[in-house]
């Protein structure tokens, strides 16, 4: 049966023709190449290399970036791409988010002209994979206190420290690493063969199994002087990247929720208990209509945020609200969808348990659910509540 994306309010009719064509391109690819292979990829714990190649060939990596052979699409189109990819799997969308928003974007915005010309075309084509090193074992929600540091030598920098939970790390050709230089957070481009750099993979995940997650280890890692990102100092650098990635997640989560709704509806209509399809029972209908309600609201939120992003009239708090809400409802929808599937819901014959497990990560990464609440709390009251003297 062909996938029919839930779009109760026809929000996609507000997209431009170009955005719809991009949607169809990605949706068809996900149908043909991702859905048939995703469970195997998860079982083996690999990100299939064909997917990297195809994303590069379709030209969707770094979607909203302009110039340097980047796609130059709207932010709304970027959101649509994330949604369609995450309908397949959150790990797949994570790959694209990290490549585009977390690795290409900082080079595009804060890099030197030489860095842009050198890295961006090959990253847009998927030839080079990037990753983003911010989080450390002891500094997750509080990246400002990171301990990875850079020292300036005569003709090079020396990096020391470790990053953790780095999507794409082991497979990456380059890492955008945030480290303190004389106490100030700066961005550095580290290439995979730089001396003193290693990226061991983290194993044993119950979530995002088709995505590579790694540590980045720097032991007197020596990089040339021209690898510092000249255009930014302080937390603004990594936070600008996260804003874009979180924007993509607010759309992506809808894709996962749509996939769960679609599977739950199909299952409820075909599963017979007490002589009737379970879709005919009020409790199940109540669950389905709740899903429809939340997905529709999330779609409107994401679309409006996309317009604001394209118009340049947005603040980070707008993105926090959408990321937090849309991932939250997607996770709850995945759980309810699993419930509707009964025992069958735990099998990999259905996508719901996979999405559910993935979304647990998505709820936590790129600013946890709670941290986004605190960002909004600060916006409302003017009082930050992240830290205090105890």
């Amino acid at each position, binding site marked *: *049966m*062909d996938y029919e994306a839930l779009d109760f309010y026809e929000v996609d009719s507000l997209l431009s*023709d*170009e955005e719809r*064509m*991009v949607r169809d*391109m990605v949706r*068809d*690819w996900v149908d043909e190449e991702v859905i048939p292979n995703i469970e195997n990829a998860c079982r083996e714990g690999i990100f299939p290399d064909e997917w990297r190649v*195809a994303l590069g*060939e*379709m*030209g*969707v990596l770094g*979607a909203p970036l302009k110039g340097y052979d980047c*796609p*130059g*699409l709207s932010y709304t189109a970027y959101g649509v791409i994330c949604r369609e990819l995450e309908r397949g799997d959150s790990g797949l969308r994570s790959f694209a988010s990290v490549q585009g928003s977390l690795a290409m974007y900082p080079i595009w915005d804060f890099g030197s002209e030489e860095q842009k010309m050198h890295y961006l075309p090959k990253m847009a084509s998927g030839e080079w994979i990037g990753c983003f090193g911010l989080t450390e074992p002891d500094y997750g929600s509080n990246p400002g206190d990171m301990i990875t540091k850079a020292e300036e030598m005569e003709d090079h920098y020396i990096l020391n420290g470790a990053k953790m939970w780095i999507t794409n790390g082991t497979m990456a050709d380059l890492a955008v690493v945030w480290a303190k230089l004389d106490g100030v957070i700066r961005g550095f481009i580290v290439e995979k063969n730089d001396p003193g750099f290693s990226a061991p993979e983290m194993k044993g995940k119950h979530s995002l199994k088709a995505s590579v997650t790694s540590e980045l280890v720097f032991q007197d890692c020596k990089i040339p002087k021209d690898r510092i990102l000249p255009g930014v100092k302080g937390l603004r650098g990594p936070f600008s990247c996260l804003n874009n990635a979180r924007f993509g997640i607010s759309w992506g989560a809808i894709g996962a929720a749509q996939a769960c709704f679609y599977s739950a509806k199909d299952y409820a209509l075909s599963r017979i208990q007490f002589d009737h399809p379970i879709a005919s029972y009020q409790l199940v209908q109540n669950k389905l209509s709740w899903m429809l309600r939340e997905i529709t609201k999330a779609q409107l939120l994401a679309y409006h945020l996309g317009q604001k992003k394209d118009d340049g009239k947005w603040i980070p708090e707008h993105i926090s609200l959408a990321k937090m809400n849309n991932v939250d409802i997607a996770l709850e929808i995945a759980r309810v969808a699993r419930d509707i599937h009964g025992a069958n819901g735990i099998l990999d014959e259905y996508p719901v348990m996979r999405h559910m497990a993935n979304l647990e990560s998505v709820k936590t990464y790129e600013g946890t659910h709670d941290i986004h609440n605190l960002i909004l709390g600060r916006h409302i009251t003017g009082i930050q509540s992240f830290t205090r003297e105890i």
Partner: protein
Amino acid sequence: MNIAVLLKQVPDTTAKITISNGKVDENSVSKWSMSPYDEYALESGLKMKEATGGNLIAITCGPERTKKMLTDAAAVGADTLIHISEDKVLDSTQVQNLLATVINNNEIEVVLCGKQAADTNAGSTGPGVAEILDAACVTMVSEVSFSENSFISVRPSNTGTEKVSTSGISVFTFDKGLSELRRPNVRGIMMAKKKVIETIKPEELGLGEDSDRIILQTQDSPAEKEPGQIFEGVGEIPTIVSKLRNEANVI
């Protein structure tokens, strides 16, 4: 070389079809797509264009919605887009006449199309256009190439496959081939957006009001399938055998 690909937009093969007042209700079709065999013709046209440095002209006839299919064709590489704009459902002969006129007006040397459209399955467009153009016509081909002033096509024969060589203006109708269909990419989509679609009215091509010759009387949904029967246990075997022999007539 000017290469024409004739495209038809049809209800997607997964779309639900409803009948109202004895006709397919087009408004109820949720998704329209390029007819699948036409996709193979388009792919072959793109390959020929790349090999010969030719100009690929995508032509369709139909209402406003069919323009999207031309833009989709441009996204994978069609150079020129021609839309014969007609809201009415025309009969096969009328469509063939319109297409043949456009082909004549554009100095086209080779015409590619699907062997049949996925909606009517009539299979008359290719041969009909060839007849009007007085062109060579090879049907059910899986690939076509151009070398030394002739077209070489491959089609099934009762011994396997056969290669057919044609010269002069030639029409090829495509079956599902081995070639993988290319996907669009973002760059193609952005270029396609800028492509101008040339729109022509049937009157400009000389189609008069009086040329309706075939009239579609009514359309019906397929008959409902009778529900299946389930038999369980060894004891039911004689019943099953008897039913297969006497009712289904399969053994």
